[in-house]
């Protein structure tokens, strides 16, 4: 595009002026606080105690504002503690994908040619099946565990992010500062990581926030389907999976509250991603 490139401070000003961004960011920050300090905030032990079995599926009340689940555990405590599981897994997967994707994109964009074509074909193959199915396949093959979820999502994100970074590198390569660096016979890796990388940082930031939304979605979908989380861990997807069978019996609280938590987090992250894209692109 030939639109004059906005300066860094202008971009932040656009972002700061966006109501969408603030609404999203506030909700995300609240969940981050719960994720970090959940242990000190939760009124009951999220993992439950043997005595809980006496209070199975109790309606929301003064003692348990969001009720108790099928094993008598406090739903509020589990919802608050559940923030940690999804956020650490999604964040780790996105960071992994962004690091590898950026490195790969820089190299491929700089190298060009056949390497470029191969990457595009592999990306197409990966994208022919939905991420949830890729995740199920890989977790079945490798054995289900949280670490596997991080690796699989990070691995699938790698070519996707690489493609975006590559496109940005291709347009940077034409610019004078790169030519100058090459004429100066700077080391290619130096040019890539010290000269070009800071100039494609915006693209990477946008890509990161968008991918984080997808990662949260996928992590929760996989745990809902029963992949990648141990049954006792407080996880929103798993909580819904374990309790939606009780809905028709009128026990809505162990299902609805984690569902609301998921909806608030994914919508908030995507509002942030959307306003970041608009400000930075």
């Amino acid at each position, binding site marked *: 595009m030939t639109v004059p490139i906005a300066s860094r401070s202008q971009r932040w000003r656009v972002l700061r002026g966006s109501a*969408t961004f603030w609404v999203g960011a506030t909700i995300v920050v609240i969940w981050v606080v719960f994720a970090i300090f959940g242990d000190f905030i939760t009124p009951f032990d999220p993992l439950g105690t043997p005595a809980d079995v006496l209070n199975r599926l109790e309606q929301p009340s003064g003692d348990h504002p969001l009720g108790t689940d099928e094993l008598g555990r406090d739903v509020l405590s589990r919802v608050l503690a559940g923030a940690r599981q999804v956020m650490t897994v999604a964040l780790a997967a996105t960071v992994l994908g962004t690091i590898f994707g950026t490195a790969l994109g820089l190299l491929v964009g700089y190298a060009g040619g056949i390497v470029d074509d191969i990457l595009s*074909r*592999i990306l*197409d*193959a*990966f*994208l*022919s*099946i*939905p*991420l*949830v*199915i890729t995740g*199920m*396949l*890989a*977790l*079945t*093959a*490798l054995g289900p565990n949280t670490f596997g979820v991080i690796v699989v999502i990070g691995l699938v994100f790698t070519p996707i992010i690489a493609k975006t970074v590559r496109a940005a590198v291709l347009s940077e390569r034409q610019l004078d500062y790169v030519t100058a660096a090459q004429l100066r016979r700077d080391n290619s890796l130096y040019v890539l990581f010290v000269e070009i990388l800071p100039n494609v940082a915006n693209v990477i930031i946008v890509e990161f926030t968008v991918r984080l*939304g997808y990662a949260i*979605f996928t992590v*929760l*979908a996989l745990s*809902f*389907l*029963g*992949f990648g989380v141990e049954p006792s861990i407080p996880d929103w*997807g798993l909580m*819904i*999976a374990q309790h*939606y069978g009780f*809905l*028709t019996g*009128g026990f*809505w609280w162990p*299902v*609805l509250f984690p*569902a609301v938590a*998921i*909806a608030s987090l*994914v*919508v908030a*992250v*995507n*509002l942030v991603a*959307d306003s970041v894209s608009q400000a930075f692109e």
Partner: protein
Amino acid sequence: MGRFIVRRIGLALITLALLSVLVFIGTQLLPGDVGRRVLGPFATQESVDILNARLGTDRPLLVQYTDWIGGAVTGDLGDSITLARPVTELVGRALLNSAKLGALAFVIVVPLSILGGILAALRRGKLVDRIVTVGGLSATVIPEFVSGIILILVFAVTLGWLPGTASAPRGSGFLTQLRHLILPAMCLVLVLFGYIARITRAGVIEALEADYTRTAILKGLPRSIVIRREVLRNALLPTIAVVASQVGYLIGGLVIVETLFSYQGIGQLLVGAARNADFPLLAGGVLVVGAVFQVSMLLADLSYSWLNPRIRLGGSG
């Protein structure tokens, strides 16, 4: 145009071949000892060996791959371990069920999202626009099992208007079956709406700002005619391609929706195969899903280029 088609089909085939290698790695190489993975740690070595011999997973990897892919081309994907039936038969039946659900979702979402996109573009920056764009984005990103839960709570549990499961009793008529499919289809509609509406909105805005629209308005044509004749005809072109390209999201959504509403489609089949470590069924199912996706993307590209005279008549394309 001819060269474009040949090139496009070639690319789809290369992608599918690559996908088959990835699926093979995932289902035969990564699990290590397939027989051991299926039978678990407590099975005797003898029974593991017997299963590996029956599945053919004791042979060299290259032989296994060529055998599998050769069968796939002729429509033989082996037998499911847990269901003891040909994978092709199981996948075929499940795909048919999923197609019914997907078709219902598309019948609802396409007119709805196009209408929403057009309204948002015509009332740009107004409340309707905000509702369609922000609401659409939010609906797209909320996982299907969350929106599904809320739909079940409201329409099945509280109001009692619609059934909360997708499978109608055996032998029930078309209308009963349809009633059971409405809530699951609505989950898919919520996911697909935002993106199609956004693309429609962008297309309409672009067409509204184009020179031919200005000319038509300056000629003194009434606004409604300008919109119908000039704007929509040009704006809906990209939308058509986008609708077909949504099949990927649809299949991803089916995995979750079919599990939530216990509907016997391709999504539920794959989840079951993964849970039971039924590798032949999983491999065959994923490969078929990839093929369905590639074919729909191919149709999307071809229909777009056929509808777009700039590509159709462009020659080299």
